[in-house]
């Protein structure tokens, strides 16, 4: 930096703005780059794990179509792949949450921490407040990831998308996030040596505050064991909380911290300040305030009240402006430096990453518009959309940052620029090869689901027809995934070779900066311009003049505590004012008298449904759309879900909706279908659940789960008494097992998990066609639940 430029950046600028020069006594300190190296390594390792699990689940959707392929000579060359669709711990429903959690919280999470720990120290001119907290944060977060990697394939899940981890891990997340990371970060702000908090730090503040709020409120649950819990929310309200959380996980894990990363690392890589710092201020406030409202657009045409989903849509459309404002600000940072793109892979990754951000944030509001969403919802269109954002925006920004950091952190030259360029092109082609076919698949699905023939009947009444049509696109996705992973592997190799060339001992340059003196800013003197004779009016006018002068906001930029509080107000006000009316106003969830709690056996079956992650492929929500009611039956009502802790509406239909599955097929059909789906539907891509025919149901556990449900308000009445729940479950299981045996199926299923799951499926969507119970509400509910469902179970 030239002398003149340095002056602009420090003393001269402060003199111009009237801020007191800081203390002249210089303090010496070093930055903790060891922690940045650790987080960067974790980013690469978990990134590869997350991508590979993604490839595995992509393969699981195509393997069933080839595993039974037989050549003319009678051999089955792909039979060896059968384990991917028949192994209990590797089913799609169990691995898909592992993939999403690994990519969002392990890959992107560690990338965020890499960026935060590197940039915060430099922007604050201070070492992280506590090296111990930094290390606790690092190892705590990696421990959480390992816990997730172990529990999710074992079927321990809360059954809420991107919030699957069970309650002890949730508690650990809160401790590590706020107790270690948050405390360390905020204390570093407090001891900083640079008065102005650069805009990247604002985005980090909003991230930490909001993620804590989202995580704690959405994860509230009653434990029913060490690795089992039930959400305190039910049905419509749980759906609202979940997608408030789910969409804002996108906002405050995959967007705001990456914008902070962009605002710090793009100027570094381009060797230019951000295009417009003014725009970044407007970008920050409008983005965090508007984003928080957008969640309900995930629930259009569901049982959520229309006002809530319309509100979500309107705010989503408004998001176009701040998102594109930020994207343009990032891209124009390269003004006058575009020629560097030809030579610098870091800038190439950044530019393509920001371009994907702008594409995704154009498409997101588009998908939130109700008429578009009617076609896109539950289809692969959403999957293409999120992968454009995750691979393009989060992935490429992270890769760019890593290539920029590696030589600086390892204090040597990057091993191979050529390999970085290969990574860029493989990654770009991989993303395109993934998203383009999946867009086509999504739109094809949506159109096939709603197609009618000339007679007014569904043109594709057999759901599996709409699945087999997509196989070529699913194969193309596998190819795209392979290219993307190949690129990431090249990066890992490149980093390994760079690390091997590191010096024997890393240098730790000593920095110098003056300490900040306590902030004593006197407000500019304003006089009231009014002639009014009330003190209130004069004060109001002076307040307005201060606001117009930027006095209040300038205070926020220099006082971390105020910035934290106002960021929290911005996100909490939107949240509360959207959520509270839904919870508080009775008319939002009209009750239905004939809807009663699940019987103990059905509840146990529901637990199996949740543990197997069935919601990853099957929805339980029929929208009031002609093609849906024609295919699945009467549309879903809010009152049908009041005992659903957690809700299981799902967000995608790889298989058909199950909201009205009860009574559609016999118990034996379900049993054979679980044993080997292709035995019932030749072209099915569902995994085999033969293990459920062997796994025993723990009746003691059933009773514990009923009591936990009763604690969160489900009126189980007599069922909570000792032995009642188990007795009811045994009786209902015997009826179903007898029915299967008499129909020609296997015997001895009375104590097997599959029987509970069948009981649950046979109950789904049947309540509204029953007469309301005549007995007083609570007693009637428990008795009614037992008898009605028993009748269901026996009747098929």
């Amino acid at each position, binding site marked *: *930096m030239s002398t003149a430029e340095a002056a602009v950046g420090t003393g001269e600028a402060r003199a111009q703005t009237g801020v007191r020069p800081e203390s002249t006594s210089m303090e010496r300190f070093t930055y903790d780059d060891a922690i940045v190296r650790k987080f960067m390594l974790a980013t690469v390792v978990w990134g590869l794990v997350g991508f590979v699990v993604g490839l595995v689940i992509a393969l699981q959707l195509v393997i069933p179509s080839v595993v039974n392929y037989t050549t003319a000579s009678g051999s089955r060359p792909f039979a060896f792949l059968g384990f991917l669709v028949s192994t209990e711990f590797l089913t799609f429903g169990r691995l898909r949450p592992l993939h999403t959690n690994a990519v969002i919280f392990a890959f992107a999470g560690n990338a965020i921490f890499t960026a935060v720990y590197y940039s915060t120290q430099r922007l604050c001119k201070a070492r992280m407040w506590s090296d111990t907290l930094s290390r606790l944060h690092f190892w705590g977060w990696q421990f959480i990831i390992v816990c997730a990697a172990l529990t999710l394939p074992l079927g321990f899940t809360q059954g809420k998308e991107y919030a699957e981890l069970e309650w002890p891990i949730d508690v650990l997340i809160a401790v590590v996030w706020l107790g270690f990371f948050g405390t360390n970060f905020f204390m570093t702000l407090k001891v900083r040596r640079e008065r102005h908090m650069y805009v990247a730090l604002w985005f980090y503040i909003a991230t930490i505050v909001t993620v804590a709020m989202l995580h704690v409120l959405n994860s509230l649950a009653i434990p029913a064991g060490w690795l089992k819990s039930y959400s305190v929310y039910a049905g419509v309200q749980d759906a609202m909380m979940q997608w408030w959380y789910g969409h804002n996980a996108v906002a405050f894990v995959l967007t705001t911290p990456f914008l902070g990363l962009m605002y710090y690392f793009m100027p570094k890589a381009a060797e230019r300040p951000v295009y417009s710092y003014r725009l970044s*201020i407007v970008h920050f406030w409008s983005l965090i305030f508007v984003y928080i409202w957008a969640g309900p657009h995930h629930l259009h045409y569901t049982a959520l009240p229309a006002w809530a989903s319309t509100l979500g849509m309107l705010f989503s459309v408004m998001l176009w402006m701040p998102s594109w404002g930020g994207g343009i600000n990032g891209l124009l940072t390269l003004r006058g430096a575009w020629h560097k793109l030809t030579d610098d892979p870091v800038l190439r990754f950044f530019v393509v990453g920001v371009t994907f951000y702008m594409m995704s944030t154009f498409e997101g509001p588009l998908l939130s518009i109700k008429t578009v969403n009617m076609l896109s919802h539950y289809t692969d269109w959403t999957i293409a959309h999120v992968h454009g954002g995750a691979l393009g925006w989060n992935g490429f920004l992270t890769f760019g940052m890593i290539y920029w950091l590696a030589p600086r952190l390892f204090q040597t030259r990057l091993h191979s620029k050529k390999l970085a360029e290969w990574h860029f092109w493989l990654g770009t082609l991989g993303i395109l090869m993934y998203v383009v076919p999946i867009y086509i698949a999504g739109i094809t699905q949506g159109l096939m689901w709603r197609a009618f023939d000339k007679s007014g009947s569904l043109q594709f009444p057999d759901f599996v027809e709409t699945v087999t049509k997509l196989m070529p696109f699913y194969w193309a996705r596998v190819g795209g995934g392979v290219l993307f992973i190949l690129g990431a592997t090249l990066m890992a190799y490149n980093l390994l070779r760079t690390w091997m060339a590191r010096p024997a001992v890393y240098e730790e340059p000593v920095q110098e900066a003056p300490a900040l003196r306590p902030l004593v800013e006197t407000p500019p003197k304003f006089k009231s311009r009014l002639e009014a004779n009330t003190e209130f009016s004069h004060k109001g006018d002076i307040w307005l003049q201060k606001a117009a002068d930027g006095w209040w906001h300038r205070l926020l930029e220099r006082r971390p505590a105020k910035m934290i509080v106002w960021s929290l107000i911005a996100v909490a006000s939107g949240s509360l004012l959207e959520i509270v009316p839904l919870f508080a106003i009775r008319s939002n969830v009209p009750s239905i008298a004939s809807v009663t709690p699940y019987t103990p056996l059905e509840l146990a079956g529901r637990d199996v449904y949740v543990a197997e992650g069935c919601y990853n492929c099957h929805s339980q929500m029929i929208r009031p759309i002609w093609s849906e009611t024609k295919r699945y039956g009467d549309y879903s009502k809010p009152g049908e879900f009041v005992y659903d802790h957690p809700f299981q509406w799902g967000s995608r239909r790889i298989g058909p909706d199950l909201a009205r599955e009860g009574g559609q097929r016999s118990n034996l059909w379900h049993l054979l279908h679980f044993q080997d789906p292709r035995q019932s539907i030749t072209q099915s891509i569902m995994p085999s659940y033969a293990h459920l025919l062997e796994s025993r149901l723990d009746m003691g556990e059933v009773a514990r789960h009923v009591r936990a449900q009763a604690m969160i308000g489900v009126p189980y009445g007599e069922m909570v008494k000792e032995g009642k729940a188990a007795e009811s479950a045994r009786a209902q299981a015997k009826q179903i097992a007898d029915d299967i045996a008499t129909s020609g199926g296997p015997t001895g299923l009375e104590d097997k998990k599959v029987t509970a799951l069948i009981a649950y499926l046979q109950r789904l969507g049947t309540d509204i066609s029953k007469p309301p119970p005549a007995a007083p509400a609570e007693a009637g509910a428990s008795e009614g639940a037992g008898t009605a469902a028993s009748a269901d179970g026996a009747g098929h």
Partner: protein
Amino acid sequence: MKLSDVMSGLGLAIYPIAAMGLFLAVYIGAVVRATRRRARSEMDAAALLPLDGERMAAGCVEARKEARR
């Protein structure tokens, strides 16, 4: 009478509109802060913070000032 009955009678559904008003106020405040003439030098200094102590393209700051004249 239950709490939900009381809440139902309070007309809370209007509150999202109140929040919208709050947002507009904050938004206008941020725009005002960002666009005040006095803020220019502060903003220029703040924008340079990531580059403090780093090499920067020669003449970059001067070029920006020139472009604004």
